[in-house]
């Protein structure tokens, strides 16, 4: 057996998030044979990131002043930095997306003595440091983690979720109303849009193996926009979704709009699209997106 000391070192820096990305990473045991995990507070006792790390995975968004400090320190100690998960890419669910009532209520409740201060919002990490690779998903699947660690340059990622879903799109099945976030019986093998579900897989990047839509749950867009919509204003991805629903259904446009802007979808879809409105952020090219 190869000694663990010879294996390339990788580390995981957890900013403000839910640990779901770490749990997903632990669901793959493949890395044990290929990498030496030198820092990941969830599973390793070590107070600092060593300064000779090959790859640093960063999970969570920037929520506190301490997050900024740890992120910058982490960047200086690694050759390559990968932003992992919805929170690192967009700020995540802790982002307020124009909800001023929630923001005020949160900030009013968030001051404590001698503890890190909460920033006015949750921010994506590339607002503060250079990112070499983006791995979106809430959380990314264990397989995607392994691809990111081992050979991201040669990865073949499905352009959209539909490519991996396998459900058939029918021309003669046109719902006239929304079936609801999820209710009623889902027919097997038939596209969820044909069945009146607000599934956004048509605009969402693939690579997840369509693990929600195959068993019958509408895609909420956690992998973010597919390549054509990267770095574009929100209306590009939303307009594409509107076109899909106009082409495949007879659901009134106002009803579609109301759902596309609902908190349920804004968790993911809205956040990635909002992100592009910040002009001072670096471009996320498709080469850097896994």
């Amino acid at each position, binding site marked *: 057996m190869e000694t663990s000391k010879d294996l390339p070192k990788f580390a995981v820096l957890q900013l403000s998030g839910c640990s779901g990305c770490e749990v997903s990473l632990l669901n793959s*045991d493949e890395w044990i044979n290929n990498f030496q995990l030198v820092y990941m507070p969830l*599973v390793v006792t070590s107070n600092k990131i060593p300064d000779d790390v090959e790859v640093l995975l960063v999970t969570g968004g920037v929520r506190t002043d301490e997050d900024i400090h740890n992120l910058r320190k982490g960047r200086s100690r690694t050759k390559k930095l990968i932003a992992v998960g919805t929170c690192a890419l967009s700020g995540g669910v802790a982002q307020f997306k124009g909800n001023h*009532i929630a923001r005020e209520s949160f900030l009013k409740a968030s001051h404590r003595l001698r503890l890190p201060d909460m920033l006015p919002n949750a921010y994506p990490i590339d607002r503060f440091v250079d990112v070499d690779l983006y791995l979106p998903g809430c959380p990314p699947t264990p397989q995607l983690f392994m691809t990111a660690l081992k050979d991201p340059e040669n990865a073949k990622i499905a352009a959209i979720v539909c490519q991996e879903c396998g459900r058939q799109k029918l021309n003669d099945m046109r719902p006239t109303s929304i079936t609801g976030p999820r209710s009623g019986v889902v027919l097997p093998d038939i596209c969820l849009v044909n069945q009146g579900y607000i599934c956004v897989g048509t605009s969402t990047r693939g690579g997840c193996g369509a693990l929600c839509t195959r068993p019958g749950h509408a895609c909420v867009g956690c992998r973010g926009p597919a390549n054509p919509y990267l770095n574009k204003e929100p209306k590009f991805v939303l307009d594409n979704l509107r076109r899909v629903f106009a082409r495949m259904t007879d659901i009134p446009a106002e009803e579609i709009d109301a759902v596309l802007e609902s908190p*349920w979808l804004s968790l993911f879809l809205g956040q990635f699209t909002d992100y592009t409105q910040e002009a001072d952020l670096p471009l996320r090219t498709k080469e850097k997106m896994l």
Partner: protein
Amino acid sequence: MTTITYPLSRIEGHARVVIDVYDNEVFRADFQAMEMRGFSHYVRGVPAEQITVIVPRICGVCSTAHQVASVKALEDVFGITPPPLASDIREVLLLGQLIQNQATSLFIFTMPDRTNASSLFELSQSEAGKAREFSLAQMALKIRKIGTDLITLAGGQFIHPIKTVIGGVSSGIKREKADQMILTIQELLPVATELVDIYWEMSMEMGDRIGSWGDDEPTHYLASTEANNYCLNSQRLRVMQPDGTEAPSFDPHDFEAYLQIAESEYSYAGVSSYMGQILRANSLARINLTESLGTPRADAYLRRFVQTFGKPAHAIMFFDLCRGIELVYALEKAQQMLEGDLEHGETEVGYAPKDGTGFGLVEAPRGPLIHRYEVENGLIKTADFVIPTVHNMLAIRRALTVAAKRYVGPEGINAELERAVGRVVRAFDPCIACATK
């Protein structure tokens, strides 16, 4: 006055322990949550039926418990009861979460404390030691994966599950999938008991080496499992008093009459108490409140535990051993349930959304979890999350004080205190993301 700060690892989330020492005496020991998730703020104004997709994101470790509690709270608002098949599938889902969580806490979080290693994945220099540790890590991840696979099977997604819906579950579990899972459990159950035995042995050695099993003062215990039915998709809360007698049980609707929850100045997590007293939740609370688990191997471990340590047992390191008993139970119980028919029958009932206040209770790995929602005009007006880790906050503080007093004396501060602090906190397996909801 000297203030010592210990950052913590091998727990969920960002937290630290702060100990103030004055003239070689412990003045204060505190456990502080350093981040704030704030979901009770984010969900204000969200359409009620969408909250079940949002709240699993409170915590990736506990997403299953949050999803089920959330659905149950809305079912309470809408006045509907899911069919028995749906309740069974939810139970399988919660068992999957218990397996995943207890395997993580036992082998990834706390086993390294038994050998003074920095992690399960740290290998020693000697070939023999290396081979043994490597196989332990592989075995532990295999057992943990059964939990993940059960969550995927019964929840539709391995994190942030989606199959539990208002009114029931979106589909049954197919026979062939259940049979595959049964085979895996049958194959790995002996591996799990071997790991639990190794862990038990290591814990006994650690207890001997340290000369203490930690804070053992009698305390109140809170759980929502029954004495002879370890159902995690639970209905009522039970309390054991320090003398071992049981106080009257209560319904989640009445929790505020029994549990007082307060904010804390030095932590982003609150603290709760039972009628003003310190209480404990999590594995030891459940085991103290249990007569029989109802599966053969787990009941054998339970008898051994009670014979060795008595009932109720109070020392905090028993939390860790009880997780081992529960891991075995959850594997056996999941197999039993999958042997039944989870494919045919009514999976969900219809509902008409309406306004009102509802409560949803489940026994999460860390203890009873309650979601309380107030729905007005179809939107969430207020949301409360009553979090198991918060119930343990006062108990953690007391146990830290006990440990600190042990290692701070006239000769100064013993370096062992740092390890002790980690062991104490990990015994309670706190979850900071949840505690700062």
